[in-house]
């Protein structure tokens, strides 16, 4: 696989060195490799078996991603992104670890699901697939341009039970409290888990970026939680490694909403790391250990943080 030389700022290197339980050389090695090409087979339009057969006939090599039901690494063949099968919506390009967000949400057909920061639609289309045309997926985003991409992807995948909304996710929960069985908050973040995909991330990052984004993330997370029905489940995910955007945000939600509880997360097929219990003088909520971190050097792809939050019955928002 192609390797590229990557240079990180001193500030970013200093931050990464402070993370416990990580070998900086392995992380740098992972950052220098391009992300693997991976697809999700769209079972709204075809079966896994049929799709695999069509792709193999066209010379593609496919290898199952162990932690997701419909995900495959793809290599060989012509450019799949410009193939009939991609244009018809039989396959969707998505990062392998990113597929975990919808997988961990425990979506059941018939659920009302809100994807609060949905564009460009990778997770929303995945959720729609898991709904099997029963229930509703509400895919929201704040950006007009990004909603266009979201709408295009929902169309291509063939989602009939969808509503696309265009609004600030931070006020969604206030306007529509206790409405959804499942909520996904895949929050905007500093993207330190996907530096190999976008090197400009490494150049733009500073401690201040993470501090600023964490306030937005908390607003989104609280809003998503308020939109959740009692008994409902929510996934909070980011593609970054900074504890201010991950553990600190979730910890604060637990302080602010007494009916919010964390559930244990367990993923087969990829090494997961324990979350940080403290950072620079901050001590996080003791239940934070139920969350997981996945590092690029462990997945061979993106780095992510996941938390699964349940709204208890009988609590007040």
């Amino acid at each position, binding site marked *: 696989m192609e390797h590229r030389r990557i240079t990180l700022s001193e500030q970013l290197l200093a931050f990464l060195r402070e993370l416990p339980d990580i070998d900086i050389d392995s992380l740098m090695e992972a950052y220098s490799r391009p992300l693997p090409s991976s697809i999700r087979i769209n079972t709204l339009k075809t079966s896994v078996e049929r799709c695999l057969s*069509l792709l193999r006939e066209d010379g593609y090599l496919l290898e199952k991603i162990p932690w997701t039901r419909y995900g495959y690494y793809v290599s060989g063949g012509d450019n799949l992104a410009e*193939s009939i099968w991609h*244009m018809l919506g039989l396959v969707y390009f998505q990062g392998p670890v990113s597929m975990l967000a919808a997988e961990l949400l425990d979506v059941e057909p018939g659920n009302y699901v809100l994807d609060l920061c949905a564009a460009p639609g990778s997770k929303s289309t995945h959720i729609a697939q898991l709904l099997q045309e029963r229930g509703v997926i*509400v895919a929201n985003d704040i950006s007009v341009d990004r909603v266009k991409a979201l709408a295009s992807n929902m169309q291509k995948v*063939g989602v009939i039970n969808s*509503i696309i909304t*265009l609004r600030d996710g931070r006020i969604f929960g206030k306007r529509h409290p206790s409405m959804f069985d499942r909520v996904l908050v895949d929050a905007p973040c500093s993207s330190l888990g996907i530096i190999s995909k976008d090197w400009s991330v490494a150049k733009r990052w500073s401690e201040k970026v993470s501090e600023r984004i964490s306030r937005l993330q908390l607003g989104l997370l609280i809003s998503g939680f308020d939109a959740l029905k009692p008994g409902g489940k929510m996934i909070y995910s980011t593609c970054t490694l900074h504890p201010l955007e991950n553990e600190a945000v979730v910890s604060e939600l637990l302080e602010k909403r007494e009916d919010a509880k964390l559930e244990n997360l367990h993923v087969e097929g990829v090494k997961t790391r324990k979350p940080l219990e403290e950072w620079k003088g901050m001590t996080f909520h003791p239940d934070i250990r139920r969350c997981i971190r996945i590092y690029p050097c462990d997945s061979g792809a993106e780095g992510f943080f996941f938390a699964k939050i349940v709204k208890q019955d009988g609590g007040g928002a």
Partner: protein
Amino acid sequence: MKIRRADSELRQQIEHEANRTYGVSDFFSNYELIISGEGRVRATTSETLQLASILKKVDSIGLYVAKYRKWGLTLSIEGSHYLCQQLKSTLELDREDAIRWMMAAPVEARQKTSGKFVVARYQGFCMGTGVVGRDGRAYPQVPKWRRIPEE
């Protein structure tokens, strides 16, 4: 977004056109039909429409399945995908022509077509409507963002 649900009269007209042009006897009868700009017909479930009616800042609902204009009804790729089993006749394409179709390049309509519209099919997958020209070629109505780029 103002939601304009197709009333029963409009629905009947669309169903009639779908039957006349494509031989479709069940045009999304289990779904709600919504009309948006330029005669676009979107289909969705009743509960989706119900939920949309109480949400604010709705941008779009359901799936774009067809375009209904005075001169006829064309099916989107997804509309034809849903109705694929019902279509009375389709233009069966080989790989080369299927690629041409997805480039929005005209394809020779080798099979006899009864009207001015035809739905193409490749490996069992319906690929939307093409307009059959006087030259006997089908001109696919593939939106720009769905096209395979030309080399």
